[in-house]
């Protein structure tokens, strides 16, 4: 099998897997049911109660977001330049 064919097969299988699971997951709501008005109020109160926790987690999320993106842009180039092809 040529390299191009191997890449094509690999990416096609990954694309197929992603599509298959999207079809399954989007048609399967694990917990059906709607929230009552009292539950909606409780949800709103909980959001206010954990405001600090939410700010911290969103802040860390933004940090990791850029961490992964920058790492991804730099790492493969570094690996090939430093260690070469095998």
């Amino acid at each position: 099998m040529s390299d191009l064919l191997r890449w094509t097969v690999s990416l096609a299988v990954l694309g197929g897997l992603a599509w298959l699971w999207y079809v399954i997951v989007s048609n399967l709501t694990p917990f059906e049911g709607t929230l009552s008005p009292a539950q909606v109020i409780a949800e709103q109160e909980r959001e206010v109660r954990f405001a600090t926790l939410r700010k911290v987690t969103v802040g860390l999320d933004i940090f990791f977001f850029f961490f992964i993106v920058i790492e991804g842009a730099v790492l493969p180039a570094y690996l090939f330049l430093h260690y070469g092809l095998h």
Partner: protein
Amino acid sequence: MTTAVIAPDALFEPQPEELFEGNALAHKGDKIFIIGCLICGTWVLGPIGLPLIAWGMVLMRRAEKQGVKIRPWAITLIGGFILVDTTVNFLAWGLDLFPAHDTSIGRSLWVNYGQLVDGGYMFHYNHNSIGGVADSGEKSVQIGMVLMAMPIKLAAALGFLRMKKWGLQWTLISYWMYFTCWMIYMPNILMHFPERFGSSDFGVIGFWMLVNLPFLGPLFLLPYLHTVRRDRWT
């Protein structure tokens, strides 16, 4: 793919004609943002994906200024992070699992990674019947992640960003799955310490900096996901 960048409760309000243009702008911005996140998840194309993410966010901001009610920015950022993190893991491990591991670029990428951080990828690469990394524990986690956990997490992230109820629920489920995989992965990698860390150039420090720190995402996101207002996802 249809994206529901507009907050669900706004969908039920009569939209003035002047907001039609803003709605189109918000949808376009959302699509560009999602495509940018997926491209960033390929790692190599990160420099292309980052400007797309920024441009998508600018368009959504413009739509918001025109009066369009869009989903909260925190949800957009969280969803974007999940997309990038998931695509990185799905694609990278997927290329080690499937025939790309036999190509010169695929093989070099993983053997080089082994030399830099995790020696498990350096020794006996492509020497067993499945190919790719030879460590049986690593391969087991990889199969679980690539065939199940990661594609579920990817689909869930798209539903999460579209403000679908199934999206939020599957995001929570897949994040607990991810956390479980991380718990399995850690002892597995540490039990072969001399081979996996002792033999690489940057060992434990490199592993924490390049792999394990981003893997801590679930620990930070789970509390957030459990305290969101569930009524926003319809």
